[in-house]
């Protein structure tokens, strides 16, 4: 007799809420009023808020379900928290933005919610197949979203490039799963972990499989050398989608990566430790160096995001509760900072078109002091200047690296931060110290967009001055996996 699977919806609660909200939006999309679609965004936002509340209520759970394929523990919940914030901010930022670009349609919000559901599934996956399931749900939605301004040539390039390279990465990922299955006889993370401890570690198949898996993850987090798509996709995608790709998809991939590393492959840390510091050094150095040369804000932030992935990989190299906790904390910080920065940028228009050039920000402080101040604070957080959250986040990451004995890695990290200051400050220089040439950029009015910026600002200040509570949560999300 086939056993009836025990289905506990609680375990996939937040993901289910997001997915169901997506379905509700699909239905609502068919109903009048025909011309306006912003109510869909608010319903979606409601779903996100419910998912966030559920996340907070479920905090402290530690159960698996669906035959051990899904897991609900603090790590999954922390990942969900970050993804939830990212989704909420992105929805708020999108409402007036896509309307202004006359691309408003119900599919946009529906896809955002399905992508979010996929991300949350990744964060709560306890089985490589489920990781893949979440990854694909998220990616397919994001491929479409990246090309959402379909009349624009860059949008097509972004979507196509993201899709093709993403498909390759998925192929690697799947092949990796297959090899790991061959080596250990399971795709379940606990069982792989048990097999590794039992001696499968020496199996070359496992190492190759893991390396292939890493290619897939490296692509999603855009670590060098798997970063080639990043700048073009960030540039061509709608700016709010860029924010989503930069924050939500990275949070999901990092959470899943942390779980795979800590739960299944911790005995092999000696084998993969060096791999990650190579990736970290490459990512932060290349990201920062190339960012210096960028004249487009979105491309600049794309390379900056590669650099930030490098910093986060330092936390993975360091390992332990401090290392893992600081990666999670940084994900949250990075989400607020980056979503906020993109949130300000997408409000800018110059002569009727989106203003995304570094030069477009010239003189902004004189005309829109509040928008300029907000963007300046986000940029300072990216530099890592106290009292913004960016500083505390880096402080924990560098601290973890130093503690684990990677003093030289921390030194490379801080030298990179100093170099990065140059290109972030260039925008502040433009906003505060230069006069615009020709038609100046203006800030488009948007209540929802401003609200998103305010929430993100609150996030970076709160986390910058009182980081302890959330860092403790982040650390408590990782510690159980280390037992």
């Amino acid at each position: 007799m086939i056993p009836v699977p025990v289905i506990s919806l609680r375990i996939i609660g937040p993901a289910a809420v997001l997915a169901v909200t997506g379905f509700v939006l699909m239905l609502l999309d068919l109903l009048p009023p025909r011309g306006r679609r912003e109510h869909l965004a608010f319903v979606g936002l409601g779903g996100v808020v419910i998912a966030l509340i559920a996340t907070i209520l479920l905090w402290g759970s530690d159960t698996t379900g669906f035959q051990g394929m899904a897991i609900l523990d603090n790590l999954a919940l922390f990942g969900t928290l970050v993804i939830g914030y990212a989704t909420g901010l992105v929805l708020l930022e999108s409402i007036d933005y896509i309307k202004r670009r006359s691309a408003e349609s119900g599919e946009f919000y529906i896809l955002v919610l399905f992508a979010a559901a996929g991300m949350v599934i990744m964060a709560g996956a306890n089985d490589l197949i489920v990781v893949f399931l979440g990854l694909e749900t998220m990616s397919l939605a994001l491929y479409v979203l990246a090309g959402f301004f379909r009349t624009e040539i860059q949008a097509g390039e972004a979507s196509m490039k993201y899709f093709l390279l993403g498909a390759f990465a998925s192929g690697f990922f799947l092949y990796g799963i297959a090899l790991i299955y061959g080596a250990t006889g399971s795709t379940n993370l606990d069982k792989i972990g048990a097999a590794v401890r039992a001696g499968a570690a020496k199996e070359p198949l496992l190492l190759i499989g893991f390396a292939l898996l890493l290619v897939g993850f490296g692509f999603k987090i855009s670590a060098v050398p798997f970063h080639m798509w990043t700048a073009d996709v960030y540039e061509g995608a709608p700016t709010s989608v860029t924010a989503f790709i930069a924050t939500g998809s990275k949070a999901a991939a990092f959470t899943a990566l942390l779980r795979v590393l800590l739960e299944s492959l911790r005995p092999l840390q000696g084998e993969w430790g060096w791999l990650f510091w190579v990736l970290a050094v490459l990512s932060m150095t290349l990201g920062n160096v190339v960012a210096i040369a960028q004249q487009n804000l979105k491309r600049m932030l794309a390379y900056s995001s590669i650099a930030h992935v490098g910093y986060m990989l330092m936390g993975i190299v360091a390992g332990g509760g401090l290392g893992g906790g600081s990666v999670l904390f940084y994900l949250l910080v990075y989400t607020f900072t980056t979503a906020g920065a993109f949130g300000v940028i997408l409000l800018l228009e110059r002569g009727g078109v989106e203003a995304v050039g570094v030069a477009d920000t010239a003189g902004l402080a004189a005309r829109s002091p509040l928008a300029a101040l907000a963007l300046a604070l986000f940029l300072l957080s990216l530099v890592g200047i106290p009292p913004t959250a960016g500083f505390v986040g880096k402080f924990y990451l560098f601290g973890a690296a130093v503690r684990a004995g990677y003093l030289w890695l921390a030194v490379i990290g801080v030298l990179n931060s100093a170099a990065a200051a140059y290109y972030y400050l260039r925008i502040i220089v433009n906003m505060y110290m230069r006069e615009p040439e020709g038609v100046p950029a203006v800030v488009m009015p948007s209540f929802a967009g401003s609200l998103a910026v305010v929430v993100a600002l609150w996030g970076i200040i709160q986390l910058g001055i009182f980081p302890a509570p959330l860092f403790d949560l982040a650390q408590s999300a990782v510690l159980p996996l280390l037992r």
Partner: protein
Amino acid sequence: MSAVLSTVTFLPLLGALVIFVLPRRSEALVKVTALVTSLIAFAASVPLYARFDAGTAEYQFVEQRAWMPAFGISYHLGVDGISLLLVLLTTFLMPLTLLASWHSVERRWKEFAITMLLLETGMLGVFVALDLFLFYIFWEAMLIPMYLVIGIWGGPNRVYAAVKFVLYTLVGSLLMLVAILALYFQHGSATGVFTYDLPVIARWVVPGGRGQILLFLAFSLAFAIKVPMWPFHTWLPDAHVEAPTPGSVILAGVLLKMGTYGFLRFCLPLFPQATLTFAPWMFTLAVIGILYGAWVSTVQPDIKKLVAYSSVSHLGFVVLGLFTLNQQGIVGGIIQMVNHGLSTGALFLIVGMLYERRHTRLITDFGGLWKIVPALSVLFLVVTFSSIGLPGLNGFVGEFLILVGAFQVSRPLAVIATSGIIFAAVYMLWMYQRVIFGEVTLEENRRLTDLSAREWVILVPVLAFIFWIGVYPVSFTGKTETSVRALITQVQTKAAATVALASP
């Protein structure tokens, strides 16, 4: 537990928040609010001096609250004889600086006031923080306001100067961050107490050898760039020349002292063995800085650039004093920090006043001012003498003590350093002569007006202190003696302990 230090430190921040909500149109209201805030902060800091107990080397007015207990980070403030005078110098200079900006800052006064007040909070925080993490926060946070002051209200080449200033400082301070982290974990794993609390860490003896030397070098680089010591000084002339008058006054008056203060507060007590190892090097660099600064000053055509390079020379004296590691040298160094803040601050104020009148700072554009603006000329003369170190004025006290200290350590270097005073007389007096004496060569100069009431109010308090310190320095040195003695004892005993640890 009193909250005097928190009040003094965060009053300017409060003022900045108030100004943030004030309407942009009412510029007068903004100006008055900023000035009043800085005056209240000064008034609030006076009791620190009055109630300071000079008989103990302990930190006073201590405040400590848990902040991130899991990491041993606390909100810990306090002052001792080393930081007290610098706190007072900061609160004293800020109202004068704001008053000096009254007309010279022509645009965006609201942003200017906010930036300056944030800067004040940052600087005060650096001097009163007793937790390494907290110290670092203030140290970095104050970078941005200064960057904005130079970059927004500065001269034609301001953006270059501002970015150079930030990048130079950032490289140094980020390496210091890594050193702070390394120190934290080293201390934690050795003693079992993970804390960023400075007094606690200072009780522990950092193991000698390569580790201590690296830590010392990382901290020293950050401070050497800030001072700035030769050869890390190249950002300073750019920053000073481009900065507006208030920026220069604060930069010279307070910001540069953060470097020398850092040496005293962190390098000496935490890394005594490395300090002893590197003292001869520091000594040599300081003497090179004294001579180099003086020589380069001599040939400057621009008064402001001249004063900027003279800072390199003067700060060389301070560093020389600190690394004598004896009582006279260090007390002299501390008092010289204050002196430099007053004299060079006043010089920049006067240069600013000249610039406001003539819109030029080139020495050759002046000449014969004595007959036209007698009051300005007299005050300028006093400040010039103070900067040279004429007996009876403040500069003499500091330089004399430093040289007494230096003679006990290395006679040849002390002799060379003394020649720096002679060169100072050369470049300052020569500059003064060309600007003030002689015939009026340019017609524009005949129309100059003498000091306004506002300018009298700015300069007189500074001159009062210049005379006070010159005539009766004990009011100020007396506050520092005990702390300095304790510091020297600490350096010696810990250095001995380090050696003892290493040898068995």
